[in-house]
C-alpha cells in the first residue's frame, strides 16, 4: 500500500469510504488510529491491557459494520473515539456490576490481611511522587470525567481531540465541554493532592 501523507489521511479515508473501497478504509483507519484508540481504552479501563485490547477490537468491529455510513460530518478520529467512548463506558458499567459483586469478599480478604481505606494526604505541590499516583487518581474519577480527559489530553497531540470534536461526541456545546474539562482536571488534581473529595 502506498504511503499517505499524514495531513491527508482523513481525506484518503473519507474518499475510500465514499468510493466503497472498504478494505482500504479499514486498513487506513487501523494503521492510523489503532494507537489512539488503544491508549484511550487502556486508560479508561484502569490500565487493564488485555481488556483494552478486547475493547479496541470491538471498536474496529463496530466501525467495520457501519463503515458504509461513515461520511464527512466528523473526522475519522472523532468517529472512532465516539465508538470507543460508548464501548468503554458500557464495559465499565458491566465491570462495575461485577466489581460490586466481588466487593464484599475482596473487602473480607483485605480486612483479614490488613487492607487500607480511601487515601488522604496533605501535600500541596505536584511532585514526582504525585505523578506516580496519576494512574490511580484517574481510576478514582467518574468514567465520564476520565473519558473527556483522555480524549482531550490522553495521547500524543496527534491522538488528541479538540474540545469542539469532543462536544460533538458528547452531544453538548463547546462551552459545556470546556467547563467539563476544567472541572475534571481540577478534580483529578484534588484527588492527586488530597486523595479525594
Amino acid at each position, binding site marked *: 500500500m502506498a504511503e499517505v501523507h499524514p495531513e491527508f489521511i482523513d481525506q484518503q479515508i473519507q474518499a475510500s469510504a465514499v*468510493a*466503497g473501497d*472498504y*478494505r482500504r478504509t*479499514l*486498513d487506513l483507519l*487501523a494503521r492510523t488510529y489503532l*494507537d489512539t484508540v*488503544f*491508549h484511550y481504552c487502556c486508560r479508561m479501563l*484502569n490500565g*487493564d*491491557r*488485555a481488556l483494552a*485490547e478486547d475493547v479496541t*477490537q470491538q471498536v*474496529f468491529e463496530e*466501525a*467495520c*459494520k457501519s463503515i458504509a455510513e461513515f461520511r464527512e460530518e466528523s473526522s475519522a478520529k472523532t468517529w472512532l473515539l465516539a465508538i470507543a467512548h460508548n464501548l468503554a463506558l458500557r464495559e465499565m458499567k458491566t465491570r462495575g456490576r461485577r*466489581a460490586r459483586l*466481588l466487593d464484599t*469478599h*475482596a473487602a*473480607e*480478604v*483485605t480486612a483479614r*490481611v*490488613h*487492607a*487500607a*481505606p480511601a*487515601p*488522604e*494526604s496533605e501535600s500541596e505541590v*505536584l511532585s514526582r511522587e504525585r*505523578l*506516580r*499516583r496519576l*494512574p*490511580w487518581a*484517574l*481510576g478514582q474519577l467518574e468514567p465520564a470525567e476520565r473519558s473527556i480527559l483522555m480524549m482531550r*489530553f*490522553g*495521547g*500524543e*497531540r496527534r*491522538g488528541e481531540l*479538540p*474540545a*469542539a470534536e469532543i462536544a460533538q461526541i458528547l452531544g453538548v456545546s463547546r462551552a459545556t465541554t470546556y467547563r467539563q*474539562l*476544567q472541572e475534571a*482536571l*481540577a478534580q*483529578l*488534581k484534588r484527588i*492527586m493532592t488530597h*486523595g479525594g473529595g
Partner: protein
Amino acid sequence: MEGDEREEYGEELQDVIEGLRRLARGVETPPALLAKVLTRGECLLPPQRRSMGWWRQVVRAWLRGVGAPPGWGLALASACLVLLFAGPTIVTLRGARARLQAQLEAVEKRERGALEHAQQLMHMVIQQADRLGHANFELGRYEEAEESYWQIAERNPQLQDDYLIKAATAAWYACDYQKARDMLEERIKDKPRSESSNDLLRHFVLGSVYHSLGDLDTAMNQYKIVAESGENEYVEAAWFNVGVVYALQYQKSKDEKEMEKSLAALEESIKEASRRSRAQSAERIRKIQEALKPFDQRPLNKCGDQYHVTQDLTPLIGVSAFTEWLNQKQVLSQMSL
C-alpha cells in the same frame, strides 16, 4: 491545537495535563493487535461497492467505439426493446427482493430478541448463584460457597477472573490451601503481567495462600509484585506481609539482616498507611501490635496455626531493635493524633 492551553485551563493545571500526556506515552500498543483488528474487521466489512464512475467509463468507452450512426441507433433501439419487455419483470423481482429483505430483517429481529432474553436469563442465573455463594460464605459454609463461585467461573469466561478469585478465597477460608493455590496459579500462569486491581488482588491472595502453605519464598515474590506495583489498594497490606515473611525467616536463620528487612518492610507499610491518613497509620501500628499476640491467645479456628500465619510477628518479640522501633512509632502516632 486550539488556543493556548495555559490560558484555557490555567497555569496550575498544566502539570496535570503534562502528566496525562506523559502517561499516554508510556502505553505501548501490543504488536499483534493491528493484524488481529485487520483480520477480524475484514470479515465484517460490507461488500465492496462498485462506483458509478466505472459504469460511466464503460458507457463512454462504448460510445467512443461506436463509429457509424446506424449501428449506434440500432443498439439504442435494441436496448429500448429489452427495457420494454424486461421492465415489468425487474419491477416484480424488486418487489420480491424487498419482501425477502423484510422477512430477513424480521427473523434477525426475532433472533436478537431471543438472544437478549437468553442473556437476561443468564444474568439472573449468575446473580442467584452469586447470592447463594455469598450466603454460604457468610454462614461459614466455605465449600458450598466455593462450589457456587466455581460454577459461575466455569460457565462464563467473561466473569472467570473475578469468580476464580472468589472461589479461591472460599477455598482458602476452608483451609484448602492447595486447591486455592491451584485455582490461582492456573489463572496467573499464562497471563501477561498487568497492574489491574483484580490481578494485584490475585497475586496478593496467592501470596497469602503460599504463606499459609509455608512456602515463604514464593509468598514473598507474590507480595512483592503487589508491593512494588506503585499506588494500589493492597500495597500497604502487601508491605506488612513482606515484613511478616522476613520475621519468619529471621526466626529460622537468626540472621540480623532478615530482622532489619522485616523492620524496613513494616516501615514501608506504615508509610503507605500514613500517606492515606493519620488514622490509617495508627490502625496499622495497632495491627502490628496485634500480630505480636501468641496464637493461643487468638480466636480459635479450625485451620489451626496456618490461619494466623499471615499475621504473625511473634518472632520479633523480645528483639530490642524492633521493640524500640515500635515504641517510637507509637509515640509519634499518638503525637500526630
